[in-house]
């Protein structure tokens, strides 16, 4: 953009100049997995009965898959059941970390199918991995998203980028 910023907001740094110092980089799958490996809060997105639904959940990364808990019979549980054995619902899972003050951050998008964890052995393994529900209460259903595509982006100050 060649337009000059119009007046106002003299006391804060010129956003246009600030913007020019930021770079956007695409992140590789390995870097994405590293960024999200600690778990925390992510957002599950899927096509519900009335369009896309996005909800925050507490997740863990377990054996390369996103795992979280919800309540059996909840709207999310019902929405994500195809009713067809072996058929699984396509979902997206987004995780980000954004530093508002520095205007830097990254986001990772995972696309894959949602799998209901029904077997006792698998449930026990996930429970042991410490996948905690959030919020609390009766959330005994484990859902697992096996990534089929992982993409990510990072915005940061140009002088911090690897390329300089």
């Amino acid at each position, binding site marked *: *953009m060649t337009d000059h910023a119009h007046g106002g907001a003299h006391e804060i740094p010129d956003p246009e100049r600030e913007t020019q110092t*930021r770079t956007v980089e695409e992140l590789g799958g390995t870097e994405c997995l590293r960024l999200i490996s600690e778990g925390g809060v992510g957002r599950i997105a899927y096509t519900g009965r009335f369009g*896309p*639904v996005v909800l925050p959940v507490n997740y863990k990364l377990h054996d390369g898959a996103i795992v979280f808990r919800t309540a059996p019979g909840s709207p999310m549980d019902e929405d994500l059941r195809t009713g067809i054995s072996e058929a699984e619902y396509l979902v997206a899972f987004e995780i980000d970390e954004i530093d508002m003050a520095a205007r*830097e951050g990254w986001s990772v998008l995972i696309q894959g199918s949602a799998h209901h964890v029904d077997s006792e052995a698998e449930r026990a393994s996930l429970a042991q991995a410490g996948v905690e529900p*959030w919020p609390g209460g009766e959330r005994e259903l484990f859902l697992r998203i096996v990534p089929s595509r992982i993409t990510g982006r990072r*915005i940061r100050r140009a002088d911090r980028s690897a390329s300089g």
Partner: protein
Amino acid sequence: MTHDAGAAQPLDRDTCLRLLRSVVIGRVAWADDDGRVVVLPVNFITDGDDIAFRTSEGGKLSAAREGRLFSFEADDVEPGLRTGWSVLVSGTAQVVADSAVVDRLEHSPLAPWSPMPASCFVRLRPDQTTGRRLPLHPGGVTRERIGPEGDIPC
């Protein structure tokens, strides 16, 4: 509390709108023809009842031009306290063409964070706005830690 302390509590529309104005980052989501869902963070503002954000050529803009159903989600969560809220707005998105509106949005706090060639504004007109508050996880932390009674943890 004797009921399920973990159950999400629905929020009314006014509360949802007030909460949306308290944050600047949200996530937009849409699905393509194959049912593949995309969800990406955006820097947004509320413009009346609408959600507005800036974008350049890419998935978001294509989806808006194709008139796909959009959803927008914003939240503020406290993982430490395991409490917070989340608001979901669903509707149709359109690229802002009205130059007066574009000019107004240009002067809003929607400055891009990185160079954005040929960017334009997209607005989401809500058909449905829902929200929920996630109560504290049962544990040693009390509600009073959040703020004055009746205050919204944001």
